[in-house]
């Protein structure tokens, strides 16, 4: 229900967007932190079912640095805690993206432990595959929101009424939305997402991804989206704070990593967006 707050702030922003300017700011800096971005996606609605299981290792950089360093010399492996089998990950392309030695499909009801060893310190996190539901329909609408220049995307799916669900939507172009089913538990739910004029160039093709996520990952993304500046601004902005994921440095807990280990079920939908009046 964060949307409640955003819309209030949005009006303000909308009235005064022309009063924005880029300024030079001296920002403080900290020693680099290890970033572990391990969001596995199981494409459960495809046949055959495939999975995207990349572990991206990076280092944090100063805010205005133009590049983010990759970590290519780490040891990465995944342990299936139900049978203690181990899958090794390797950075084949030396780009910080570690892929499993053998094709691997995360199973339901199994806890996986991700281990990263870097600079003599060991980092561990656990995840279990989170169920999701397929997208029933994605289509372009012709309504607009504030400026009259937005592109409407209508999303439809059926929520599972037996459990609390949390979803992460990836609308391409680094546009994300995290929602919970608290207010539509068990219903055929439909809502609209609006691309701003500067977020998209029509005509184009976008991929909409919907993932089932844990409650903790939902909270994580809610804050992540907030702090990435997508919705920030004005006196209604919340006080930013550090965003801790679910991975622990077991060697030196003070040197905690950032990032998250998560396994979701994901459904994708590709759609062509065209110019409308």
């Amino acid at each position, binding site marked *: *229900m964060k949307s409640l707050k955003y819309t209030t702030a949005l009006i303000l922003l909308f009235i005064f967007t022309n009063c924005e300017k880029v300024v030079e700011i001296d*920002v403080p800096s900290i020693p680099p932190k290890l970033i572990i971005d391990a969001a596995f996606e199981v494409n459960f609605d495809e046949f055959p079912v495939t999975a995207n299981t990349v572990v991206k290792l990076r280092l944090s950089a100063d805010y205005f640095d133009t590049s983010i360093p990759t970590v290519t010399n780490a040891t990465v492996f995944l342990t299936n805690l139900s049978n203690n089998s181990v899958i090794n990950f390797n950075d084949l392309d030396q780009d910080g993206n570690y892929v499993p030695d053998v094709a691997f499909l995360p199973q339901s009801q199994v806890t996986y432990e991700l281990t990263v060893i870097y600079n003599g310190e060991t980092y561990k996190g656990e995840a279990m595959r989170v169920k999701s539901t397929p997208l029933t329909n994605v289509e372009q609408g012709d309504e607009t929101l504030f400026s009259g220049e937005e592109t*409407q995307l209508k999303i439809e799916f059926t929520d599972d009424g037996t459990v609390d669900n949390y979803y992460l939507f990836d609308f391409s172009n680094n546009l994300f939305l995290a929602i919970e089913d608290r207010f539509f538990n068990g219903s055929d739910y439909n809502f609209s997402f609006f691309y701003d004029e500067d977020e998209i160039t029509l005509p184009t093709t976008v991929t909409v991804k919907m993932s089932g996520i844990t409650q903790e990952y939902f909270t994580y993304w809610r804050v992540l989206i907030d702090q990435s500046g997508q919705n920030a601004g004005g006196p*209604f902005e919340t006080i930013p704070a550090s965003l801790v994921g679910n991975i622990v440095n077991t060697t030196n807990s003070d040197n905690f990593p950032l990032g998250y280990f998560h396994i979701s079920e994901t459904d994708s939908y590709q759609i062509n967006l065209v110019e409308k009046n």
Partner: protein
Amino acid sequence: MLVLFSVMSLLSFSQQKFTLSGTVYDNSSNETLIGVSVYFPELKVGTTTNEYGFYSITVPQGEYQIQISYLGYYSLSEKISLTANTTKNFKLIEETESLDEIIIETNIEKLNIRTPQMSVNKLSAKTIKSIPVVLGEADIIKSIILLPGVTSAGEGASGFNVRGGAADQNLILLDEAIVFNSSHLFGFFSVFNPDVIKDVQLYKGGIPARYGGRLSSVLDIYQKEGNSKDFNVTGGIGLVSSRLLVEGPLEKEKSSFLIGGRSSYAHLFLPLFDNDNTAYFYDLNSKINFRINERNNLFLSTYFGKDVFGISDNFVNDYGNAVVNLRWNHLFSDKLFSNLSLIYSDYFYGLTLDFVGFEWDSGITNFNLKYDFKHYLSDNFKLSYGINNIYSKFNPGQIIPNRPSSGIVAEKLTDKYANEFAAYIEAEHKVSDRLRFQYGLRFSNFLRLGQDELNVYANDQPVIYNAQLRKYESATRTGVETFDRSDVISSFNNFEPRLSTSYIIDDETSIKASYNRMVQYLHLLSNTASPTPLDVWTPSGRYIKPQILDQFAVGYFKTLKEGKYSLELEGFFKDIQNRIDYINGANLVANNEIETVILNGQARAYGLEVLLKKNEGSLTGWLAYTLSRSEQQTLGRTPNEPGINQGRWYSSPFDKTHDISINASYDLNKKWSFNANFLFQTGQPTNYPVGQYEIQGLNVPIFNDNTRNADRLPAYHRLDLSATLTPRKNKDRKWQGEWVFGLYNVYGRMNAASINFRQNRETLRNEAIQTSIFGLVPAVTYNFKF
């Protein structure tokens, strides 16, 4: 308490004294005047009229030349032979009326120096109207920000901060009724129609025992009663809104009515977009006043105000206050004044988001009964006492589908109920010509009443600390308790002592000191730099404790050059227990388990205020400077927990080290007058990122938890000018017109409302984006009266 009564009985033995009492009115409108000084120069004693224009003073039998004086009015000097208890009403003539030949020195500052009350600022409707403001809308809240110790989070930020306190710690009273939302358009304009305002007082410290329920300040606003002599229309046409006020007698000099309206123009700001949209606000004030007889007065007043935004049918947002207030003034005797108030007040917030498919509303409703007595026992002893009971219902929110196809399932967050009772007694005691005291005690009792479901947590801990991930997390409730509405879930009792004293060094100099304890049982859930209309109030209870403040203040007061100038120096220290803060990533909106994101902490603020005023002459105004610090600390509950900011003190979001304001008004001649303000405030505390990383391709700034609010926005400063033109022809006609030309932010400084960090979509470079709200804004307003 015993001491008080023994003092009272002692006093009643005094001999040969008589009481002079009555009411002081404005000569032309018959409005009662608040704070008029009634002074006996021979005895060097005096009193001031109360909120209803009433005064009472008991002095030895004799002949006196008494002085009645009031700022902006010609003083009155009258010979009185006091040989019995006497009722005498006075009528004062406003200085603006054409009586150029008579010039009597206004001399009201003298009493201010004597009274133990300190840390109070007064603004007249006239001053408020002459202060230049953005878009020409005269504004109480924007005016008080020019006073020492008062700041705001900037343009477009609602509320105000007093002596480093939060915006929810201000008690805003409109004719004794509590106003929850003080601003329109998210903070651009305040809800108070300047035409309807009679008197504004801001208490920042030494707060009298008759006020309670908020920690930082009391903004006490009284509306006009309505002209009971003549039918009058006042109005104004501005760039943003138009105002109209109609007042007149119902029965001449006995009863009157007043209806005032203010409305912005529809489609405010938004016609820039070719959408079908609306945005407007309005206020409606009405008041009826019956003077039943010399001893009884009845007032019925109402206020309705609303903001409405709509963008096609996709988005509709409306919110506002409603207040209905019935008051009865009764004089039990010429020494005992009473006022009974019955007040209903309501705040509503509504939102419809069609693209998500829901309607949302939240709000707070309360019923308030107040019975206040003012007992003028003798010229050196006055007693105030009374009771106050407020019953409140809180609707934290409900969501309902807005169309059949929506898919939203209706949900109601649990309503909360509370009752706040208070009783107080306070004495104004003149011990000697030099030494005076004002001491009192307020007792408050807060009952959190039964609600449908109260969440229960393991070990009574709604927030748990995850030591492994080093973060606070919301606990999952283990069950709910159910209550009847008459059950008491939690009960709090507090004694709130208040003490002020003044010591008069000489006729022009005094020192004062005060201590006050305040207790606040309601909390505004807000995690932003300034409150939003969406923020909800929540009562204290099992998981949230009442906020308790202790404030000490000392001051030095001096009038210079026979009252031409005055100087006020004050230092204060505030200590607040139970100030809440929020865990990282807390979601405050539509959260039915709000206790799971709250951490309990404390706050403190201290500072020094200087106010130099020029009270007379064609150039008047003031220079205010405040040096202060406002901090918060949230310790871990156990030694293993870090709390917030590693348990160290951090700047509160409204910490402003330096705050300078200058206000000057200059009457050039009968036709032209000019006004200027200059404002400088240290930039607001903020947080700059210490690094960046990427998750799923999204660039995210890193914020450091150990340096909360350690960075600052650039300093805020601006200069505003206004000129008022009163045409010469006014003199000979009923129609009185006036043009006000204003320039807001003359040198067009783009003050930072915020600085945000984000990745540029095209260059993929990270950028710091500063948002500013107003550059140079010219304005013109036409005011009229007939």
